[in-house]
């Protein structure tokens, strides 16, 4: 289903889960802290998180509301910077990167799916999907073709010219997913991608992620739903900004 969205050159075969330890980590967090100060009150959203995720893994992040899941995801997606600790992305320390380099990383390496979709309301679905390619300098014709292909891959090719307000929540989330994977990123991050969806739509979106993982992409997604987490190969549990458990999922489907 997602086949049309990726270029053949970067297509990687699915790897057996057992090889995971051998590949170098794409993501490496070392004692990462994130503090928010709200006037006199300081909120510690992340408290010394260390985490390594290898290429091709499918990781679910779980935890109660307010445990720091989104904060963690934003750091992973280079949308925010840690207060303390180091984040290495593909071996490079993110703290040493310039704004321009960070923009390039967000543009090429990472596809981010927000819980709130974050589509631009005045652009059509197709133009929304074209955005990352516009910043990557892909020419217009190719951009249109790839956007159309990506929308078809997530099953809403017929809605390409609708604005977000003319689409259902599930359709908007699909547009957001198409936008995240249209640049063929190695790392796909999703913050409760099914949180706003009806269960039928949720299942379809999860099938999409499973397909992307099967193509060799690294997928990290946040969820509350143990059922959803069951699709992943590894579950990381957070509580009060700390990792309380990090274990492989027995018997993946």
């Amino acid at each position, binding site marked *: 289903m997602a086949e049309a969205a990726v270029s053949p050159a970067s297509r990687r075969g699915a790897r057996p889960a057992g090889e995971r330890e051998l590949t170098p980590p794409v993501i490496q967090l070392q004692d990462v802290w994130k503090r928010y100060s709200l006037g006199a009150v300081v909120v510690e959203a992340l408290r010394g998180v260390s985490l390594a995720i290898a290429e091709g893994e499918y990781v679910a992040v779980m935890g109660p509301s307010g445990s720091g899941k989104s904060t963690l995801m*934003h750091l992973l*997606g280079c*949308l*925010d*910077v840690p207060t303390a600790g180091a984040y290495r992305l593909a071996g490079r320390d993110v703290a040493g990167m310039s*704004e*321009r380099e960070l*923009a*390039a990383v*967000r*543009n*090429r390496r990472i596809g*981010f799916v*927000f819980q709130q979709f*974050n*589509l*631009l309301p*005045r*652009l059509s679905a197709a*133009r929304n999907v074209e*955005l*990352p390619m*516009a*910043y*990557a*300098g892909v020419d217009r014709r190719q951009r249109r073709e790839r956007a159309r292909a990506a929308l078809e891959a997530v099953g809403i090719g017929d809605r390409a010219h609708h604005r977000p307000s003319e689409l259902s929540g599930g359709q908007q989330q699909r547009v957001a997913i198409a*936008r995240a994977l249209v*640049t063929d990123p190695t790392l796909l991050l999703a913050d409760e991608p099914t949180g706003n969806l009806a269960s039928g739509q949720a299942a379809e979106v999860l099938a999409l992620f499973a397909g992307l993982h099967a193509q060799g992409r690294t997928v990290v997604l946040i969820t509350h739903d143990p059922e959803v987490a069951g699709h992943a190969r590894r579950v990381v549990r957070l509580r009060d900004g700390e990792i309380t458990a990090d274990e492989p999922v027995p018997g993946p489907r």
Partner: protein
Amino acid sequence: MSWPETVRTAWEALAGRRSRSGLTVLGILIGIAAVILTVGLGEGAQARVGHAIASLGTNLLIVTPGSATASGLRGGLGSASTLTLGDARALQSHLDCPDIAAVAPVVQRSFGLAAGSNTWTAPVLGTTPAYLPIRNRSVVAGAGLTAADVTTGASVAVIGSQVATSLFPSGRAVGRTIQVGGVPFTVVGVLNTAGATANANQDDLVLVPITTAQQQLIGRSGPQAGSLSQILLSARSPQAMGAAYQETQDLLLQLHHIPSPAQADFTVTPQTALLSTASSVSGTLTVLLVGIAAISLLVGGIGVMNIMLVSVTERIREIGVRKALGGTPSDIRRQFLVEASGLGLAGGLGGALLGLAGALVLPQVIGNPVDISWPAVAGSIVVAVGIGVVFGVYPASRAARLAPIDALRSD
């Protein structure tokens, strides 16, 4: 992001907010049109006054009898008639007055005129051929007075265009006879149209040889016999005005045996004095209008500023999305720069067009001339674009430096 892509993105953003973009453009447009029209009105008024004064004559000096003092006009010391043909002749001497180019003595009085059944009343000036060049006038039909007319005391007249149309409404005036105070004169020429100035209608007059006027019309007897109404002089150049003024003053004091300029029984008024008074008056007017224009531009500018600020604040989320997808701060800055200058330019050009159209239409409606001031046009466009750019780009470029997530969170 490439420039063409940036322009496309900016266009998309503007087109997506049609009414807001339209209002911004309208605000700029009206401000600029107002500036162009108010400055144009001021300059038009100034030009009209300047032109009217310049049409009185080039490098002109006017000598009038009596002296203008704080207490008003007073007569001369001793001599009954203060300005004479002798004075005028003396001023013509290149030896004494090297900076004076031409001299025209004038005697003047109002007379009833008649031609057939048509009658009219107009000032009649007895003068010499030098009058026309000094006053910067010419004849459009026939010829002017000649030296021979003056020597022989010919009964010929050159009439202003208004006199011509009043006395000869249906035909040629040249060659016809008019009665001036009952004395017949042959019309030899008609003056060009000069329009009215503040104190005289330059088209409502009759010129006759000064000798004829003195012998047959004015001052044949009485204490004022032989005295002149005024002497018109022209300096060799605008730069020579000062010297010409001094030479006139000195020579006349000497001829009238007056020891000190404070006791002079005549007044020399340079044209430049009139000109500078008038232009300072209309200069004040221009300053006033420019002030009004600046205020309207400021008000328009604050409107634009407000719209830009609100629009950028509302769009910080968009900036967050764009950054999250790989937009660099300079991509964001450039997009807002193109948007803001696009709005400013559209409003600026639209306003210039409206202002220029107004400058064409307005004179027909209100009868005042509107001179287009190109510096004002250019300046107001620069200001409008500048305001748009500063208040559109500055907050956007600040938002572009936020971490994407902070921009996304703003609401």
